[in-house]
């Protein structure tokens, strides 16, 4: 027994704000992030049969977003987290519109993390998943998750301490 398609769609709408936040942490660029969510939603709807009735929709969905992002990175090539200048310019525009130099500094720091640290940080520190849930979403043992999280945190602290001026 799985949720009716309509119920799943409604549940996905409810999850969209969080999925967009997660995607933004991964992809940084607004349009890339929404592309990612769109791909993930389309995958989820075609694979809804894989959703076990007892499985929490959110971990399943975050896992799909994460896998879609890894696919995207693979397609772009590993070093492709450097964005084209016009995209950066647009993003700066978006951020300064809200007057969020601080938010921009944080997003830049996240973007400079190795992928596996970035997703660990995003799942636990931003999305509030437990270690167990985050490890499940990333399909790694908890020990791997916690070490990625620790390294990601230290790297972020260092980067953000350096750019501390952005806070004032």
């Amino acid at each position, binding site marked *: *027994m*799985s*949720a*009716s398609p*309509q*119920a799943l*769609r*409604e*549940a*996905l*709408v*409810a999850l*969209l*704000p*969080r999925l*967009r*936040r997660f995607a*933004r*942490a991964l992809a940084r660029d607004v349009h890339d992030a*929404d592309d990612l*969510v*769109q791909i993930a*939603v*389309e995958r989820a*709807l075609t694979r809804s049969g894989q959703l076990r*009735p*007892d*499985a*929490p*929709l959110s971990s399943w969905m975050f896992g799909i977003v994460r896998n879609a992002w890894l696919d995207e990175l693979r397609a772009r090539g590993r070093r492709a987290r450097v964005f084209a200048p016009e995209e950066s310019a647009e993003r700066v525009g978006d951020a300064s519109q*809200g007057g*969020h130099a*601080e*938010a921009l*500094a*944080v*997003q830049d720091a*996240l973007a400079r993390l190795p992928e596996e640290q970035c997703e660990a*940080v995003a799942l*636990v*520190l*931003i999305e509030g998943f*437990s*270690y*167990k849930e985050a490890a499940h979403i990333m399909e790694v043992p908890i020990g791997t998750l*916690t070490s990625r*999280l*620790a390294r990601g*945190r*230290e790297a*972020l*602290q260092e980067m*953000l301490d350096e750019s501390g001026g952005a806070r004032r």
Partner: protein
Amino acid sequence: MSYSEETLMAYADGELDPAARAALEAAMAADPGLAQRVARHQALRARLRAALDPVLDEPLPQRLLESVRGAAAPRPAAKVIPLKRPAAPRWSWPQLGALAASLVLGALLGPLVLHPPAGGGAVITRDGEMLAGGALARALTEELASNRTPGSPVEIGVSFRARDGGYCRSFQLREEKALAGVACREHDAWRLEVLAQSPPQPPAAGGYRPAATALPPSVARTLDELRAGEALDASAEAAARAHGWER
């Protein structure tokens, strides 16, 4: 005793068990340097959230809503309703329906939501979190596991204290496609920690199902992970209700 950064991070992430947490808190009280190291991890969490949380308040892009709803979905005007509503009113069904129709704020899972009873939708979202609404919220606030209300659409399973000291309750919705879940009291609302469809079960013969039988595994797991000790007994539960479920 010296603490590893990993332990301090686990504390900031709410991952320590109650004994380890209490020991660390005592150590922090005696050692400002230690407290400062913990504060650094907590500050990073707060900083990340502050940077990314505004995404939750952005209007949802039309193309995403169309992807979710399918091509046949009605296209509402792009109307922006901020997700953060100061002093959120108790939404009535027509209002919720309008919101869902405007595709800006969806709310909803399951049959209660699609065919809501007069009491309102069981699940609402606020700031991207799923909260209990309508009859479910009322039952969580008012009903006792130790003294069930006949005819209520909600069956409270157990009440317990979570590791962070707050109150949580498991519940099942008595509907055709039963949903079960765990909700924890957070300020003025019941935050849904997990919500899943119950496996099919034979109709109870004239009585209630025993509490906590046939809970979906994800719900049972969440229950185990959250709870700090035994379920509240009848008097502790009544006392918690009398205090508005405040920790």
